[in-house]
């Protein structure tokens, strides 16, 4: 057992993964810079999509870690490091926010003083929607996430050498504080970065909508990486299909949750059909956007739902990889669907710029993951729940 633990605790990933991540990021960003001079608005909108995708995976993963601690889950302990590695995106979010914060005026209508002055609604919203307060909020949220990321992963890492059980208890307390903070920060992140793209629109469920997509994206990333690592024998042999089943079941649950929330948001706006609200969905149906709307329903709900419905499917490596990869793409599509129609009179079109930034984003995820995987144990060897987690059976 001890031998096994050591053998699988830190098995270095092949170098080409790191290289692939590096190439993806560099090529993505270099084309991104060209795109910025070609079409600044489109480039920045796509950068925003990439940034929120990284928030989804990074902060969503941190939420999954907190969830494990607070419900005292055992099955996820052997794969917690993988989630922690994904959460290591959080520190980079500070740097990555800079281009957006500097060039807010390119994509956000409410940053233009002249527009706000002539618009009663925007003027009344300006105590909240102004550049100073926006930047303050963004920075505070980033600091909160970084603080909890640093505290929780530091305790987890310390446990590898000390094996101190008190560290688990400390992390449970931290998680209990983090989860309400996460609820508030992710809601306002959704309101600030996404809802304020069309500042006249409002939807009280929008924060939960973004949250549901966030968790789906984080779970998909975790599932995809766990299955890939398992297939290539990087994981402890006692991490078996029963663990994958739990991941698949969670993923299936959150796919349903996303569908439920997305439909709840649509149903009320469709039913009331009030001009203050319904234009948001009209922008996402007219001018060819209906294709994206339908594609979103199919890729983010219908297909994963059918694929993951049966019990054996939740352990099937191929089906898990397929739905996880599909859901990651669907989350990017979801963000694309929210962000792109917001600019004035935009009819649906696809440009090469739309592919550049997701590529860079995926590169960043791979780089951050392999950077951590090289330095830290792939198994939390000091965790008191590890043994039980490895012996997990359905």
């Amino acid at each position: 057992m001890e031998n096994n633990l050591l053998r699988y605790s830190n098995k270095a990933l092949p170098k080409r993964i790191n290289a692939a991540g590096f190439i993806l990021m560099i090529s993505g960003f270099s084309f991104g810079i060209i795109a910025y001079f070609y079409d600044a608005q489109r480039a920045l909108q796509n950068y925003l999509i990439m940034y929120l995708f990284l928030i989804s995976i990074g902060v969503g993963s941190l939420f999954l870690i907190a969830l494990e601690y607070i419900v005292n889950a055992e099955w996820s302990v052997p794969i917690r490091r993988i989630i922690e590695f994904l959460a290591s995106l959080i520190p980079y979010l500070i740097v990555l926010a800079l281009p957006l914060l500097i060039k807010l005026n390119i994509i956000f209508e409410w940053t233009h003083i002249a527009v706000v002055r002539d618009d009663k609604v925007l003027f009344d919203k300006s105590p909240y929607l102004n550049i100073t307060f926006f930047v303050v909020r963004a920075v505070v949220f980033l600091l909160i996430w970084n603080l909890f990321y640093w505290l929780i992963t530091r305790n987890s890492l310390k446990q590898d050498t000390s094996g101190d059980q008190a560290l688990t208890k400390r992390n449970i307390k931290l998680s209990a504080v983090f989860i309400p903070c996460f609820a508030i920060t992710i809601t306002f992140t959704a309101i600030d970065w996404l809802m304020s793209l069309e500042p006249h629109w409002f939807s009280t469920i929008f924060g939960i909508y973004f949250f549901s997509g966030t968790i789906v994206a984080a779970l998909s990333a975790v599932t995809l990486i766990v299955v890939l690592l398992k297939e290539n024998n990087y994981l402890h042999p006692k991490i078996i299909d029963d663990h994958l089943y739990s991941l698949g079941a969670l993923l299936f649950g959150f796919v349903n949750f996303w569908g439920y929330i997305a439909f709840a948001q649509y149903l009320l706006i469709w039913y009331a059909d009030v001009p203050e609200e319904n234009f948001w969905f009209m922008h996402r149906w007219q001018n060819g956007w209906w294709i994206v709307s339908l594609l979103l329903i199919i890729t983010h709900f219908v297909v994963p739902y059918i694929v993951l419905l049966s019990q054996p499917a939740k352990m099937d490596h191929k089906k898990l990889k397929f739905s996880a990869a599909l859901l990651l793409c669907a989350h990017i599509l979801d963000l694309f669907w929210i962000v792109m129609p917001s600019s004035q009179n935009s009819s649906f079109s696809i440009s090469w710029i739309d592919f550049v930034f997701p590529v860079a984003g995926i590169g960043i995820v791979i780089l951050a993951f392999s950077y951590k995987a090289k330095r830290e144990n792939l198994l939390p060897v000091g965790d008191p729940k590890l043994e039980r987690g490895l012996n997990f059976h359905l």
Partner: protein
Amino acid sequence: MNNNPLFAVAAVYDNPDKIISAVTKIANSGYRKFDVNTPYPLHGMDGAMKLKSSKLGFITLFFGLMGAATALLLAWWTLSVDYPLIIGGKPFFALPAFIPVTFELTVLLATVSTVICMLTFFFRFPANSYPIHDTQYMKDVSGDKFGVYVEAADSRFDLTELTILFNETGAVRIDQIYLPAKEVYPLFQPKFLWFLFSVFVITSIITYFSLNKLMYMEPFDWMADQQKQSVQKMSAFYSDEFGMRTPVKGTVARGFIPYKYLGQAVPADTMKNPLPPTSSVLELGKKKFLTFCSPCHGNFADGDSRLRGQFVNPPSLHTNRARTMTDGFIYHIITNGQNAMPSYSSQVTREERWSIINYLRVLQKAKNASDADLKMAKKESVSDGK
């Protein structure tokens, strides 16, 4: 000690690891008819027992789909086909509005049918007893022990082999469970019938008195008994005690203009027949003529009805005077009455009166057709017949 056939041999363990290893051995030896009782679910037991995944999920799926289909078809049929209603300006088939109902019915049918099918097909409802009930084994596994029993009905059943296996794996106790003696109770014992009867009488008496006497409440009849005058009822308010009042003079019904020339011998103005003599109008006119006009004027307006001789003789409507009357004047006569003929305004509506007149014109034409008319009619019948 027990003459009944052996049902099963059971072993009790005091730790979950032991029972999992024991069950693995039993399953590997090829036994199929065995079951495990533990105070809480043990992770890994399904694999150790080599259980196949349950088929219950397919029942859930089937009934879930049935629920979804039922809800969608019901909503579609009632709201879009059979009784289309415009609700909130939405299309008749408003899918988003139907989805909550579909979702609820899917979940309802899937869960309820899962439970019912589980009880009936998997637990063989109403099996209310089982040989392992009321044994020391059952008491132990309901407490802090873990138990496994192998049924004697298993084709591989071998008591000595099993006893050795149980002992080897560290069983705390091994029990042999026998089928209980069959107990038969006569259904119609006099005691039981008396008991049923007295329950019936006592429950009826208690129910009657408690609902009618003890807890009697006046029924809520606020709709039936209102503070207003009902039609055809006496009134304490008016001095003549009539609940129904005569309308004020000159009162006109809503959407109705009274006949202008009522009481005049000759209408001051000539009215034109607003209805063209189409087949549907003539059909209506014929029907009303035969109902209201023919008792006096005869089926073909010859004035030869069965009332002739018993009453003032009604005139034929084929006289020159009747034929040259304007439609408006005939309308006036039907509405106002003439000589012995009373007003028919309350029996036939305005449209029906004009239809009757159209039909009367047909009768008159048929009786006094000219040569030109006959030629015309022949021509039409030929052209119709081709």
